[in-house]
């Protein structure tokens, strides 16, 4: 009597979906192999002096992990990125909620935010090093400011995309401002905030690495700089591989967290966004 039952959302039976996923993984591995082979060919063609070979890089990565050296440098870069990400992203995600009640303040701030978003943050690195020294504080500051503007505009878009009809519904059934913020505005903005997180993540790690490149004595950026100075391209590639691994790890964590928090979304939406 209730008409069509709703279970048709997944489109394919679970086994069919598993096959499709495995298929996609297999294709991805093929592409990876092609890239590695191309890399190997290039390193043979130009010589490992210019392009470190994949085999050499892998050996060095293993050695670096075994000695703990690579992990130590990666750990420093990772902690700079994580600390900067938190310091930048948390206020960026909350500020638009606070500003919602003060449209005048929001309008005044807007052009400055747009300016901050547009300004090339990497150009600030020398300034931060001047202010905060060559330790990790200057790297954290650079990451934080880069992440802040990206997440701020995403969260703002989420707050502005609010469906006024849901607000009216909630008010009619007795919701006050606090209820609206907690039950309507925040959950509605979460998908937008996560989009911001996902965009900001590579910038956070890239920001930390580049700040280290400019001036530091540890971290993956330092390894890149050291490798380049010693004409050791393999060393540079080792640091790049480690950086990429960190980006993958971060992306995976954001996706896992998002899948948990956004269970309510139709699966097609989630897959479209998370399929990276």
């Amino acid at each position, binding site marked *: 009597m209730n*008409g069509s039952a709703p279970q048709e*959302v997944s489109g394919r039976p679970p086994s069919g979906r598993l096959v499709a996923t495995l298929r996609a993984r297999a294709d991805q591995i093929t592409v990876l192999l092609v890239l590695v082979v191309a890399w190997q060919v290039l390193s043979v063609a130009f010589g490992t002096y210019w392009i470190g070979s994949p085999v050499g890089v892998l050996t060095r990565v293993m050695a670096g992990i075994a000695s703990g050296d690579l992990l130590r440098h990666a750990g420093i870069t990772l902690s700079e990125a994580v600390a900067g990400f938190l310091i930048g992203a948390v206020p960026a995600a909350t500020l638009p909620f606070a500003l919602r009640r003060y449209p005048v303040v929001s309008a005044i701030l807007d052009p400055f935010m747009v300016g901050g978003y547009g300004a090339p943050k990497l150009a600030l690195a020398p300034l931060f090093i001047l202010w905060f020294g060559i330790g990790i504080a200057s790297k954290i500051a650079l990451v934080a400011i880069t992440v802040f503007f990206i997440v701020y505009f995403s969260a703002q878009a989420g707050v502005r995309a609010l469906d006024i009809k849901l607000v009216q519904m*909630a008010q009619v059934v007795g919701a006050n401002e606090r209820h609206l913020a907690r039950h309507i505005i925040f*959950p509605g903005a979460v998908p937008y905030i996560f989009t911001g997180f996902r965009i900001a993540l590579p910038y956070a790690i890239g920001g930390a690495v580049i700040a280290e490149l400019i001036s530091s004595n540890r971290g993956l950026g330092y390894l890149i700089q050291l490798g380049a100075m010693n004409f050791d391209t393999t060393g540079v590639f080792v640091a790049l591989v480690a950086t990429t691994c960190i980006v993958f790890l971060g992306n995976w964590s954001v996706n896992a967290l998002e899948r948990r928090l956004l269970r309510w*979304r139709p699966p097609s939406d989630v897959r479209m966004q998370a399929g990276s």
Partner: protein
Amino acid sequence: MALLEIRDLEKRFDGRSGHDAHWVIRGLSFTVKEGEFLTLIGPSGAGKTTLLNLIAQIDGASGGQVRFQSEIAPIGDPKALRPGLSCRIGYVTQEDNLLPWRTALENVLFPLEVQGRLDAEGRARADMLMRAAGLAGFEHHYPHELSGGMRKRAALIRTLVYDPPVILMDEPFGALDAQTRTQLQEDLLRLWNLGRKTILFVTHDIAEAIALGDRALVLSRAPTTIAGEHAITLPRPRDIRGIMTHPDFAALYQRIRAQLQ
């Protein structure tokens, strides 16, 4: 004294340049008695939703008066509006407006939660209504996992669960197929019989207006006024599927249709 009184109600939407103001409602008056099931029939664009928004105080009138019990809705100050009048006027809107991040049951419990009445009694009532509306087994489904008819039911019982004395309904079954629609109309009458609330039910479907209401008001095109009023004396309880064969039905239908044109 009538429970709800609308007098000389006016609503104007100002155009972009100010001088092309557009009257949606002008000189509209009617009253609603306690426990009455009043249906309002009007063509599309007759300002039906606007009228309900004014009564629910989601929007403010431009002139005239909306009185509920002894309270008169404020005019001209949107901040003074009290949407839902402290939960005494429930509103089932055209779209279901379920919160997509809450399951069916969590949506139904939402009013109780924000009203601080989420106790064992409230949960039991929600359970009873979910079952009565055929939603048993779908408590933990998210809205996107429910069919259109189920979403409508969930939206309807979200309002019934906190038992407001007056319920406004804005073409709640408009977008459904005929079969589901009849089913929901029957459900609604059954639920109404349990507690005889005051209902203002807006529709553009003459048959629906006759089948459900104690009284039907025909609205004109914008600016909206009352074009006609009809007492519906068909006996209750009514059989929705058989009502069209009732001897009084055809005459009433014709009279209302003539006024709609």
